[in-house]
């Protein structure tokens, strides 16, 4: 369990953008290899509740994804959802044992509270969650509608926490922190969210038929089905406004209008949500703000005025300015206000309150003005995302651990080894464009009737293809041994992406931000001065090879055939590879990141260790790299020449699936195995004739 992890490779922008700093490139790569269980493991290492994020994360990682500079970002959240579903996340059982004597109270059971409880429990503390409502989940339960986050998902995670031994007290509103300390809790984490809707401050706001967004969504989510009438207006442009509007559609309101005082470009709601709301028939009225309202003749008469955009404000968004004399009246049955929410902190807590009624904390340690009291989540930040809340909860857990263990806070500094530069146009030009594949959605007609989850899951093939689009930022080549570099310029000449260059002083530079990690220069450098940055926990080819050779030696199986296979191709991944591994004794597959990374020495090493045949299999025309087959064939020819000088038949080295897809992979390999068997027999006979 770790807060932040980084291997030898540079931290890619997606991971930096993720509030939880998940190892995104790692799990995306595992999905690309079809290793869903391993992908889920990586996801679970970095995220306490991946199933929740898989539905609702606003994926800042995708905004940071550098593939967006080439075509479109990787669909990271949808891939996580795929890994969570196909990896069987809901079947995973967690246990935790009590290792510490201290008890910690978590006040509030939103994502921050649940995450804090999860990590504290894993650290061995006894944890109690206090929740004012009847069910756990906070905004996950009462804020986010079911069509975005099915309730079973929250239930599963809550059940897992209970199984881990977290004590739950629902229907319990904490009125005093002193009481908690009296009850022998040594630390308290306040995460009460931001449930109080802001008021518009206009005439008639108290009229019947006006309801605030938080209350409305809470009622909907608790299954109360509030009656709305035919015409519903939602005031605001954030995610809560979208949720309220879309919930109203599902509650059979005939006409749902969003009134927003700026234009669509300034809307803080996530673009996907806006798009989906419009698909479901929600009408958006931009540059409109209500000024007063009145209940008359059984309906709500709302006076609005039109706005225009003025100078940008401190946040950079253009300020709406009323147009004089532009007032007009509209009629609705219900109006939902969703212009923002704030926390509501009891005065009894005696906590220092800052801007927007939020609790003031130290941003690093999350400590408040009271010793032993920590705070996080929306109560500190104001309304934010689920993932930010999870990160806040995790941070709190580790800082509470530091506090209880009397340790100086161990805070990771992340400034080193971050890859942040943009791709250069000349690099972008050389990268193959591959369209982003979106997961399927329920049709708008089907969505409008009920609260079923809108987004469906990728099938296996689309997930793998989507994951393969990843550029693997930060895993590129570097000149490890500058003193060895003879400045021969081989890397500059060999790179298909024009990445290495001669700096002013005459030294070769390989800018990590541009490198596409194909490994061609690594395998070609005559001084062996270049290495690929190593993703952590991953073996390089030589280590994989030694592993395979050792396993083969232990089994004493013959004839031994070693296959270096692109880990994305049909030979290296999927059912076919595992089939051979099990049923065809003597075929050992060494997965490689890219066949262009395979060196002559690796091939010879296999022969040295007794391999009768070696094959190299690519990923056919699926290859997202440039020119890889050319380099593989160069090396194959060189090794074949050496083999024939040694007295071995060059045909013992074979390539498959390099340029074009193999018609029948299994058949091709069968033929090769048979031929090697024949060569093997022939050499035995020759040996006996000689002696």
């Amino acid at each position, binding site marked *: 369990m770790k807060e932040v992890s980084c291997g030898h490779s540079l931290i890619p922008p997606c991971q930096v953008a993720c509030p939880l700093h998940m190892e995104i490139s790692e799990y995306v790569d595992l999905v690309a290899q079809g290793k869903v269980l391993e992908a889920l493991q990586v996801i679970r290492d970095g995220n306490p509740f991946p199933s929740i994020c898989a539905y609702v994360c606003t994926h800042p990682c995708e905004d940071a994804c550098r593939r967006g500079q080439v075509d479109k970002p990787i669909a990271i959240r949808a891939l996580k959802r795929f890994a969570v579903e196909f990896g069987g996340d809901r079947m995973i059982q967690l246990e935790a044992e009590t290792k510490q004597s201290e008890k910690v109270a978590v006040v509030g059971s939103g994502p921050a509270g649940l995450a804090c409880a999860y990590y504290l429990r894993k650290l061995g503390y006894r944890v109690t969650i206090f929740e004012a409502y009847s069910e756990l989940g906070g905004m996950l339960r009462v804020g986010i509608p079911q069509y975005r986050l099915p309730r079973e998902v929250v239930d599963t995670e809550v059940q897992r926490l209970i199984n881990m031994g977290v004590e739950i007290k629902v229907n319990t509103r904490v009125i005093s922190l002193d009481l908690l300390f009296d009850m022998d809790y040594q630390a308290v984490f306040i995460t009460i969210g931001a449930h109080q809707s802001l008021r518009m401050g206009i005439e008639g706001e108290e009229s019947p038929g006006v309801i605030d967004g938080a209350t409305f969504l809470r009622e909907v989510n608790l299954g109360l089905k509030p009656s709305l009438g035919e015409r519903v207006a939602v005031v605001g442009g954030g995610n809560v406004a979208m949720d309220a509007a879309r919930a109203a559609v599902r509650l059979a309101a005939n006409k749902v209008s969003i009134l927003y005082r700026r234009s669509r470009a300034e809307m803080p709601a996530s673009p996907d949500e806006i798009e989906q709301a419009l698909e479901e028939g929600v009408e958006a009225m931009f540059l409109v703000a209500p000024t007063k309202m009145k209940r008359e003749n059984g309906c709500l008469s709302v006076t609005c005025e039109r706005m225009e955009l003025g100078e940008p404000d401190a946040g950079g968004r253009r300020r709406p300015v009323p147009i004089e004399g532009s007032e007009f009246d509209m009629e609705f049955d219900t109006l939902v206000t969703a212009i923002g929410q704030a926390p509501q902190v009891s005065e009894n807590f005696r906590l220092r309150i800052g801007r927007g009624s939020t609790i003031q904390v130290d941003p690093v340690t999350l400590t408040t003005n009271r010793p032993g009291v920590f705070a996080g989540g929306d109560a500190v930040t104001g309304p934010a995302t689920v993932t930010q809340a999870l990160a806040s909860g995790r941070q709190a857990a580790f800082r509470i651990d530091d506090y209880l263990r009397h340790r100086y806070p161990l805070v990771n500094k992340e400034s080193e080894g971050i890859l942040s530069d943009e791709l250069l146009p000349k690099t972008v030009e050389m990268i193959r464009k591959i369209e982003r594949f979106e997961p399927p959605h329920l049709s708008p007609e089907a969505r409008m009737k009920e609260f079923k989850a809108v987004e469906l899951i990728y099938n296996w093939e689309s997930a793998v293809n989507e994951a393969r689009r990843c550029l693997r930022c930060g895993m590129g080549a570097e000149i490890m041994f500058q003193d*060895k570099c*003879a*400045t*021969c*310029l*081989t890397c500059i*000449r*060999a790179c298909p992406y024009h990445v290495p260059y001669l700096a002013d002083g005459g030294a070769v530079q390989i800018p990590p931000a541009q490198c596409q990690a194909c490994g061609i220069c690594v395998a070609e*450098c*005559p*001084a*062996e*001065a270049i290495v690929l940055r190593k993703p952590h926990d991953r073996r390089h080819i030589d280590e994989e090879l030694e592993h395979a050779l050792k396993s083969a030696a232990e089994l004493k199986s013959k004839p031994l055939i070693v296959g270096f296979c692109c880990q994305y191709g049909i030979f290296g991944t999927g059912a076919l590879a595992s089939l051979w591994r099990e049923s065809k004794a003597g075929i050992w597959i060494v997965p490689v990141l890219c066949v262009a990374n395979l*060196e*002559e*020495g690796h091939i*010879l*090493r296999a*022969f*040295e*260790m*007794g391999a009768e045949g070696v094959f190299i299999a690519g990923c056919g025309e699926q290859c997202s790299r440039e020119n890889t087959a050319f380099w593989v064939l*160069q090396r194959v020819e*060189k090794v074949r020449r*050496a*083999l024939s*000088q*040694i*007295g*071995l038949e060059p045909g013992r080295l074979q390539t498959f699936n390099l340029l074009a897809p193999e018609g029948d992979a299994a058949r091709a390999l069968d033929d090769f195995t048979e031929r090697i068997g024949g060569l093997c027999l022939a050499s035995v006979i020759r040996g006996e004739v000689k002696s």
Partner: protein
Amino acid sequence: MILLLGCGTCMTVCGAGGEREVSFLHSALRVAQARSSDGAHSFLEYTVKRQCDFEFLDLLVDKVDESDAILSLGCGIGVQVVAERFPDIPVLPGVNTSFMGMAKEWGVWDERCAACGDCRLAETAGICPITRCTKGILNGPCAGTKNGKCEANKDMDCAWVLIYKRLEKLQQLEKMRRYYPPRNFRVIPRPRRIVKKTDVVLGEYNG
């Protein structure tokens, strides 16, 4: 034990005897051994920065002490310097040094200089007729040039056509109108030696 010795400068640049080639050769030798079940020799690989300087070779003394022979992947010079530095053990050439040239592109090298000691590049617009003309003639082209290509190999440019075109471009065609007497074809007294330092008797000069 046989020491496989690479050279980290020119031999690395031309892909003939750098660390990668040394390790390739090492691997190939091990395969040959494994196949013939002949384990008589063991190998040690190492690449020095330059084989043509004693100082770099001095760093190898311990390794050479353990070795029975050195297989040098240096150029002809490297092999000789290694042999001179380590007089007591056999030194074998691993590379057939062919010519001095340039990398035309990745994996293609062209000869450019014969080190003839009689340089004419100033008169021939920086294009050497000694190496680039098959006949090495000084007052070309000969009658065998066709469409700018050499009669000996139609993929090869005629050096004298190249020289003419470049002189024309530089407006120095008068250099073509001169007659160049034959080169000095006397046998060069080998080995040649260049002495840069002058004999200085300290004390003779007063600053």
